[in-house]
């Protein structure tokens, strides 16, 4: 069961063109055997309002997060989730969502923690699909449960913990939050509730590149040339860099992780999902305030 790749011209300039499909491609291949379409949104009810026919819903909060620990689900729970959604280990998964695929990218990142090989994003996500007036339905999607293997989550290649960040100074950090959060004027993004970080500001030396700069107004990813300008020219990243991205809980930085890894081809990018809700509450970690990145902190130990 091989689902073809989307050969859209725009994608060929990206490092891993196979990671994206266009709305046009999806409309044509939606029902291909071996393909499962997943909707993953910020709004937990949006799928119920209308979704792409045949797609299944995966919610970041109720499905992917552990209910007790602040962590992602383990292999057994992931296998159960995949099975219940009709996803086999060799399925091609196309994820789409609201808000420029922000949560879809987060889901894709979690799929990657479990090494699910063929998982792609719908360029432009739900917004573009709707803008093109393509079919949506409230019909339930028929699912045939699969026998998905229990695979251990492999965090280390793409996930950073607080200690990894403390050991990372001197190498590039990207803060993808809003300007107000970066400077320390707010601890959560504008128009969102304050989420209880005790300190405002950013991790010293982190460059500020708000995640949404990678998205065009129609919610698609910006072109390769535009992204190179933002992340290489402006933020100063270069090939071979070991990069950690973070935001508030690791969702917006999943979007940036996707851009750096799959669109620009950086091989060592990790998402620090503890992000500001951990760092801004942690005891004795260094913080910089204001609009400047700040200097490398002197190690306390």
């Amino acid at each position, binding site marked *: 069961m091989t689902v073809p790749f989307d050969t859209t011209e725009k994608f060929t300039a990206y490092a891993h063109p196979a990671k994206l499909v266009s709305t046009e491609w999806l409309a044509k291949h939606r029902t291909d055997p071996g393909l499962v379409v997943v909707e993953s949104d910020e709004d*937990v009810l949006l799928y119920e309002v209308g979704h792409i026919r045949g797609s299944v819903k995966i919610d970041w*909060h109720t499905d992917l997060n552990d209910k007790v620990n602040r962590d992602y689900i383990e292999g057994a729970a992931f296998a159960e989730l995949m099975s219940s959604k009709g996803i086999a280990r060799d399925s091609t998964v196309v994820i789409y969502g609201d808000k420029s695929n922000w949560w879809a990218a987060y889901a894709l990142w979690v799929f990657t923690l479990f090494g699910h090989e063929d998982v792609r994003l719908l360029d432009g996500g739900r917004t573009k699909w709707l803008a093109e007036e393509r079919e949506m339905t409230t019909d339930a999607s028929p699912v045939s449960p699969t026998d998905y293997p229990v695979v251990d989550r492999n965090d280390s290649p793409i996930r950073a913990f607080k200690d990894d960040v403390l050991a990372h100074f001197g190498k590039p950090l990207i803060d993808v939050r809003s300007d107000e959060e970066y400077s320390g004027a707010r601890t959560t993004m504008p128009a969102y509730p304050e989420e209880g970080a005790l300190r405002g500001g950013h991790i010293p030396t982190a460059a500020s590149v708000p995640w949404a700069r990678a998205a065009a107004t129609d919610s698609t990813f910006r072109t390769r040339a535009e992204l190179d300008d933002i992340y290489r020219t402006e933020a100063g990243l270069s090939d071979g860099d070991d990069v950690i991205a973070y935001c508030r809980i690791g969702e917006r930085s999943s979007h940036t992780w996707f851009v750096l890894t799959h669109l620009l081809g950086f091989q060592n990018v990790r998402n620090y999902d503890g992000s500001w809700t951990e760092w801004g509450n942690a005891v004795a970690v260094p913080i910089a305030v204001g609009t400047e990145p700040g200097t490398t902190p002197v190690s306390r130990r």
Partner: protein
Amino acid sequence: MSELPAQLTEIQEDFLALEQKDRLLLLLEFANDLPELPQEFQDHPDLLERVVECQSPVFIFVELDADGAFHLHATAPRESPTTRGFASILAQGLDGLSAEQVLAVPDDYPQSIGLSEAVSPLRLRGMSAMLGRAKRQLRERIG
């Protein structure tokens, strides 16, 4: 807790009687039931207050009618069903109460209807903010 108005108690009991999954569907029903803004407010968007704590653009306006009965008007986009659902619960749950009764509604009512697990605490804060702002507007109104 005993003073919670009957219509809020009823909503609370309806949610708590359901499994998590069905609670979401009930929230969706509320979202679909959010009434359109009365014409007078559609013509005067300046009267509406944005609930900036919510994840999507939602605007509210509180009204005390000639009989002193409270009404909450709210508008939120179709593509934000969770927010619409929260607004609708409050609009229905507070409708027709006296100003005193509205001000006495516990601030943690949104946390008490069994949605924390299905909706995430972050999302629920939007509803608390809506309730908080509705009460503040009401206090200003009765000055």
